[in-house]
């Protein structure tokens, strides 16, 4: 795995230079390179084993305020020539956009690499192939060994991956970083006389040293599949909901999509024109932090040295005790909204940068999940939602759901084939409790929350 660290950045710089020589007034190039190992063990036998390497380049050029983009994974000389020529020709066809253009040079991040952030650990590849397969086998075995009602599975998986990413532009920014990833997961299938149910659990980390053990991941997966057995519908009614942190993460994540500057300037957000207003319960403080460290020397999952425009990542409070503080923006969106970029540019291979979160989370409360459940007379603990029934223009929220019914503070059995509905604008205001179980298993996270006044549609 040794590699000349500047090769990616050199290639990005070279493509920018070629575009400028071809007549562009500004240019920006992205180079990504990666390798991945993935294996799946099902019923104790290796089912798939995948190993691969890939690399690709993306180019965005400006001709004044006209812009176009091209990308390819063919790095031959002829292909790179087509990449540059195509972008320059296409940019002449588009129309002038007064807000288009690269950031000012003064805005670029001073951090140009991942040094000191803890984004890359070479131990993800330290295990020999056979031991990686053993990890996948062990996570499945742990899930299947948990209970006699688990006799089938969709397999245990182990993944290790690393990637390089470099961005260069014609205003003098050149940056690159390397990331590592490893992950374990399993999807057991539980069965009894009531039928079959599947659920899964997984864990990911930047370093093997921080990866949960196969036993921990497998046990949790088994618990989740087993508790779904015997699920029934409940009657149509209004009820209290306690959202497990895996589900509340999505509900809080909808705040990010609604404060996305692009949705705001398009009138496509329920929070357009709501800056400074109380949009949620005073219990709600939401932060987006692109600089967060999980611990010294270990970056958060959403932490990077610079954003997709080459600007510094930032920490900002999005919602403070229920009051909307700011929208999130990249360079383009910031110009549209007459604000400053919040360092949220997210650059894929092709096209213009979009908007992505750093580490986005709801600050925890003081109550434990158990205490929160104990306070519910009658209601639903929602462990999973199904579908895509969220409308960020209107706030309308309607999802398929499954979970556990709560009666007098105790779980009384599994629930499925129902929908839960409300309006996000009301739901955020009706959050009456926030639990203390915030944990980062990815770049966004939320503790469990309790919401009043939603509708269940069932039998």
């Amino acid at each position: 795995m040794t590699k000349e660290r500047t090769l990616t950045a050199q290639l990005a710089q070279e493509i920018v230079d070629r575009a400028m020589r071809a007549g562009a007034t500004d240019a920006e190039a992205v180079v990504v390179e990666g390798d991945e190992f993935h294996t799946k063990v099902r019923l104790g036998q290796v089912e798939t084993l995948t190993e691969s390497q890939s690399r690709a380049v993306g180019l965005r050029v400006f001709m004044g305020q006209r812009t176009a983009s091209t990308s390819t994974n063919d790095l031959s000389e002829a292909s790179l020539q087509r990449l540059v020529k195509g972008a320059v020709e296409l940019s002449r066809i588009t129309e002038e956009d007064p807000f288009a253009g690269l950031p000012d040079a003064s805005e670029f991040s001073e951090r140009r690499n991942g040094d000191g952030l803890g984004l890359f650990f070479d131990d993800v590849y330290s295990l020999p192939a056979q031991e990686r397969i053993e990890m996948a086998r062990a996570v499945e075995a742990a899930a299947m060994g948990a209970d006699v009602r688990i006799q089938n599975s969709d397999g245990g998986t182990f993944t290790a991956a690393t990637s390089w990413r470099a961005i260069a532009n014609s205003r003098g920014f050149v940056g690159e970083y390397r990331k590592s990833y490893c992950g374990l997961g399993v999807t057991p299938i539980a069965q009894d006389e009531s039928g079959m149910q599947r659920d899964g659990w997984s864990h990911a980390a930047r370093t093997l040293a921080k990866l949960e053990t196969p036993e921990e991941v497998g046990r949790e997966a088994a618990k989740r599949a087993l508790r779904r057995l015997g699920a029934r519908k409940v009657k149509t009614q209004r009820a209290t909901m306690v959202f497990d942190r895996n589900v509340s993460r999505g509900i809080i994540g909808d705040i990010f999509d609604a404060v996305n500057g692009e949705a705001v300037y398009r009138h496509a957000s329920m929070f357009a024109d709501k800056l400074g207003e109380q949009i949620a319960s005073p219990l709600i403080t939401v932060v987006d932090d692109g600089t967060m460290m999980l611990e010294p020397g270990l970056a958060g999952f959403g932490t990077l040295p610079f954003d997709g425009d080459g600007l510094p990542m930032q920490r900002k409070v999005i919602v403070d005790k229920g009051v909307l503080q700011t929208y999130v923006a990249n360079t383009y969106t910031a110009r549209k909204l007459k604000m400053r970029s919040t360092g949220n540019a997210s650059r894929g291979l092709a096209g213009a940068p979009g908007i992505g979160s750093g580490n986005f989370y709801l600050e925890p409360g003081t109550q434990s999940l158990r205490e929160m459940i104990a306070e519910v007379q009658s209601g639903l603990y929602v462990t999973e939602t199904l579908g895509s029934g969220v409308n960020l223009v209107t706030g309308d929220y309607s999802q398929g759901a499954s979970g556990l019914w709560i009666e007098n503070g105790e779980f009384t059995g599994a629930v499925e084939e129902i929908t839960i509905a409300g309006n996000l604008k009301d739901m955020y205001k009706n959050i009456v409790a926030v639990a203390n179980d915030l944990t980062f298993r990815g770049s966004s996270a939320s503790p469990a929350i309790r919401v009043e006044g939603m509708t269940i549609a069932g039998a």
Partner: protein
Amino acid sequence: MSSAVDQSSTARSTTVFHQQFGITDRLIERCLAAALERGGDFAELFFESTASNGIGVDEGIVKSASQSHSMGCGVRVLSGERTGYSYTDELTEEKLLHAARTAALIAHSVATAGVQGLRAAPSHDLYPAVTTDVEIAQKLQLVQRADRAARAYDPRIVQVRASFSDEVRHILVVASDGTYASDVQPLSRFSVGVIAKDPAADGGKGASASGTSGGGGRRDFSWYTTERTPEHYAQEAARQAILQLTAQPAPAGEMPVVLGPGWPGVLIHEAVGHGLEADFNRKKQSAFAGLMGQRVGTDKVTVADNGTMPNRRGSLNVDDEGVPTANNVLIEKGMLCRYMSDKLSAKMMGTRSTGSGRRESYASIPMPRMTNTYMLPGEDDPADILRSVQNGIYAVNFSGGSVDITNGKFVFAANEAYLIEDGKVTAPVKGVMLIGDGATALTRVSMVGHDLALDEGVGTCGKKGQGVPVCVGAPTLKLDHMTVGGTGR
């Protein structure tokens, strides 16, 4: 090992991989041999090269134009139920042989199946070979016309985005079972999205709504200037947004549901399609496992997955394992009669591939997937179907759906739906979410219209992280009761 490439066969050296990338039959032979050198019982090379273009208008400005090219080769080795996979995006001899030897690591037996004489597969001719040699100025006109038409529809339309994208995908599949198949697959799509805003709505509180429309397929460019014009898509998106401005919250609870023809066929795709993919059944993970030959729906229910429909988004001359696609009847008059299968599941289940082996790209392992999936028409008049409902929901358009195939529970979200009151379609409702389970849903289909329609060509089906283009379809149909999610009543 038997000799590999049958040189007498036709059309070999004419693929883009031979001409542009210098892939010779000799190299293919060496790679297959390397892939089998540890005793695998099947080896396959999947070459792919895809060139795509896009152009978009946004806020009245032609803001974006893009081109991209992606290519590579995936090597697969099967050893029993085990799959070894490796891919490379560099089509050099060194990289291809390395990928073949990596994929071969899955196998460790002495016996080997060897390479059968390679022969060109029979194939269909379902679409024009190349559609991208159209001047970009013409595509530019398309998106500009859509922008104008949407704004002209109603002054409350405040935002319009329209885009046109097209691609040509070349594939070449060569496998040790004798497969030697190539195809050139065009695909294009037009999309319009609008936002409507009415400050006076809802008693002066104001209201906003969105609308989207689009379509396409494996079609010639002239489709967009004659059959489905930019104005058609723009007006449809605008109509939906304006309608939603006045939509009321949907009722909640169990009630009869009538689905309109076309895209509501996504119910068939989710409720039964995924559950009839052979891999889930072979592994006994589907709610339909073990039900072959048994009744799973009323006798009005006949469901097919048909990859052979000309020009459709889900159609293919050959699948991504080089097998010609077919018109597969899955459920006939309520009886389950076929699973959709790829080569691996067919081998394990002792059947034949149904031409359903598909993959997102060279970087992905093929799986049984749907193509164009629909319920066949019945004999009922759609007007009679609506008249038969006292109180229920008429859903004519959906934003999407999903299913948990293990318990068969599916959901889908409507973005255009109405109340049915005393047999008449009345007020538009919003936030309609339908939930049910596949096996039960089909037993509640009591009326099936004669008006089968397929969707306009916008669907992408996701499975295990891989997306592939598909079509869905259905006639007007009535389910006696389903659970409707909403906040009203």
